[in-house]
């Protein structure tokens, strides 16, 4: 039951419900300087040739197929959950070296202020194993963020999987980004 996160940038509005849900689910202590595993963006990107694209995005760990963070960690904190295929971690031995962040193309790993240890989105894999959606997905009212079984994803013919999103964003030609002004 491998799962894939999908994201549809044309359904997102950066409302950040997903972030709040992640904060709620993972007891993220903002006061102590901890950061939510998910991050949303309401960003205006200007094109050189003129025009602006108003991006609404929500990102967390993309649970990369061949996750470079796993090999980067010198103490072996990061691994794949065999059921869900999510990139999970056990930071008992984490030395806070940020090698994982250097390997991650998406800036997914976070570091706790208190002990400097790495934390990140684990795909809510325990929830998923119990038949529930990840907390952030459950909180998205607009169907922008989803988490579905791999077969379902493959059959859907969609190009919205998070772990390929970065390439998709490249492939989708500039014209396809609806510009404003």
């Amino acid at each position, binding site marked *: 039951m491998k799962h894939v996160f999908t994201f549809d940038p044309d359904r997102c509005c950066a409302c*950040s419900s997903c972030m*709040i849900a992640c904060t709620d689910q993972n007891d993220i202590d903002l006061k102590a300087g901890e950061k939510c595993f998910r991050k949303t963006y309401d960003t205006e990107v200007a094109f050189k040739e003129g025009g602006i694209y108003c991006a609404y995005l929500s990102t967390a760990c993309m649970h990369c197929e061949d996750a470079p963070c796993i090999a980067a960690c010198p103490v072996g904190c990061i691994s794949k959950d065999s059921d869900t295929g999510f990139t999970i971690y056990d930071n008992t031995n984490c030395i806070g070296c940020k090698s994982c962040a250097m390997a991650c193309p998406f800036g997914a790993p976070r570091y706790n202020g208190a002990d400097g240890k790495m934390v990140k989105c684990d795909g809510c894999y325990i929830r998923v194993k119990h038949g529930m959606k990840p907390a952030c997905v459950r909180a998205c009212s607009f169907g922008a963020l989803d988490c579905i079984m791999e077969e379902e994803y493959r059959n859907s013919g969609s190009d919205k999987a998070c772990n390929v999103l970065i390439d998709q964003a490249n492939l989708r030609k500039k014209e396809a980004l609806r510009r404003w002004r």
Partner: protein
Amino acid sequence: MNELEKKIKAKIPGEDTGIEIKRSLCAICSPGCHCGLDCYVKDGKLLKVEGTLEHPYNRGKLCTKGAATRNYIYREDRVRTPLKRVGPRGEGKFEPISWDEAYRIIAEKLGTVKEKYSPHSVAFFSGYCKWYRPILHRFCYTFGSVNFGTDDSTCFKSMDIANSLTIGAPGGPNIPNTNTFLGWNYGGYYSNHLSVGPVQALKERGGKVIIIDVRYSPAAKNFADIFLQIKPGTDGALALGMGKLIIDNGWADMDYIGKYTYGFDKYKELVQNYPLDKVCEITGLNPDDVFEATKLYATNGPACINFSASALTHRINGLQTHRAIICLGALTGNFDRPGGNVPSFASYIHKRGGFTTREMEFREEKRPFDQLRIGETRFPAWDEYCDEFQAMDLLRQIEEETPYPIKAIVGFGMNAKMFPETDKLVKAFDKLDFFVDADMFMTYTAKYADIVLPSCSSLERGEMKAYEGGYLAFTKPAIPPLYESKSDVDMLCELARVMDLDDDLIKAGYEVCCDWMIEGNGVTVADLKASDLPVKIQTAKPVVPGAYLEKGCRTPSGKIEFYSKAIAAYDPKYGLNPLPDYVDPLFDENDPETKEKYPFHMIAGIRIPNTIHSRVHEVPWLRSLRPDPLCEINQEDARNLGINDGDAVEVSSPYGTVRLKAMITAKLQPGVLAMAHGYTEANANVLVGRDHLDPYSGYPGFKSLRCSIRKY
């Protein structure tokens, strides 16, 4: 970590983890919403929330605010016990007292004011979250005061009045059956999350969407086939111009107009004053875009229009703007037909369940008529259509004490920051003999009260609630009330007993009152409480489009009124226009001196995802999403003024000044500023003049006022 520890950490409900899901509802925002909540509870503590999938209203969905419920209810500034003020008003120094003591003091103080002045000198005022209003309303009348007021004075009522004047009913867009959705000031995402799904579905089935907004919003980006970025407050002119185009191009439904409308000829004459070029000059729009949008709306029917609750009517030309927009539905025959705008009526506290309760009777039964309400005779349309005082006159009456003094306020969730010139209002509190406020939090306003009562949240109480689709619910507490807090209605019923009010119903308690109100619907509170989910009411009937028009509109003419007979009947001294003509949204601030000094058009009170009025600014999770109050400014304006993103800026109007940070954006047009309201440290409403009001409804022009901005 072993498997069980992992499950507990992941908050998986089950016997082994001891985590239970309890059902409740989120009451952070307006009672027009209130989504069903799954509360993950362990040992009486809330661990997390999710939307209830099986709930007929929200089907599992929550907005950003609701998702933060846990952080909201465990806020550190929760009022924990009844409090008595010991310092000066506003300072926030209180000492805890017992509930008995609090009730004793309240009874005594209110009794004194009643005796010394009159019962009307006690004003009862309700802010959010409105759920207890029938009880408070009746309490007020039983006490003998005519003065029951609420935040409806600045909320959605102006739109409601415009609806009543024009069509005699509210009329929401019927998106599931429409072909074209005219999203007039439709934001959706940040203000009404449940409205987005139907628009997405419309787009997926090939329907068209027009968005008219002052900001390039997510809805404009994700949905708009045509986007009209309009100059703030000029929507009325656009609507009249569209009306002219519809008539001139033969897109009007003349049969419908003949059968169901009143005053078409006068309207037709009016719109002759709004040719396309003039409209585009006023609105700043491109004529081709206006033409295409009008054509799409008028010819690709059925078409429906978003009836914006506040964005349009929070302007001093707002009521007539909304009337002008409604007229488009009448012109094209889109009102009261499938896929158009379909009327429906509230069953209980603004919710349209398709069944009737005795809420209004319950509220009105004990109404006294021996005095004018605060503000009465100032705003004739308000007076006619609203059974409460227009709070925009409260400050004046406290200050001037005419026609009679206001000496005490009984507030429930009262929010002074809702009032223009907030600073003057809180100063005027000094003239009060007594002010009691019930609230969950030690708010800016509560700090001015003599007694503060701790209210509990919706998760800590039982509450009756109607839902669309014929549902009624009575929730059970998901967790016990925190500290010594109580449900607002319990406070009122207990206080009624202490004061020995002449009202057996209230004294009998909330559930008895509810049973009284829902009598005749075949259910009792006990039945409702037996279910974890809203219960389908057998008496509920679905809305049948067309039925309303056939029966005749609830307007003086029985028809849709282009020309309002009700307005025509008002004393000419008010200078009101029965036709929905356009006036400038800044008509009271357009003298050359003010214009020069305050060149920007401020929209105070835009919607951002992490706030709702002043209710959640102090919820840390939500605050973290936008830590500072921001004033949005167009990038060119910012460049000209040397303002960089994040710079500290000072925004001023003739009435006041706020300091906040600049947020530079391309989504706003030059000349326009926008900010969210409700911040204590940057309260938008100190910028608003107390008389900057819509002459029909008394609504303040929050979303169109003159300002200046500079770096400081």
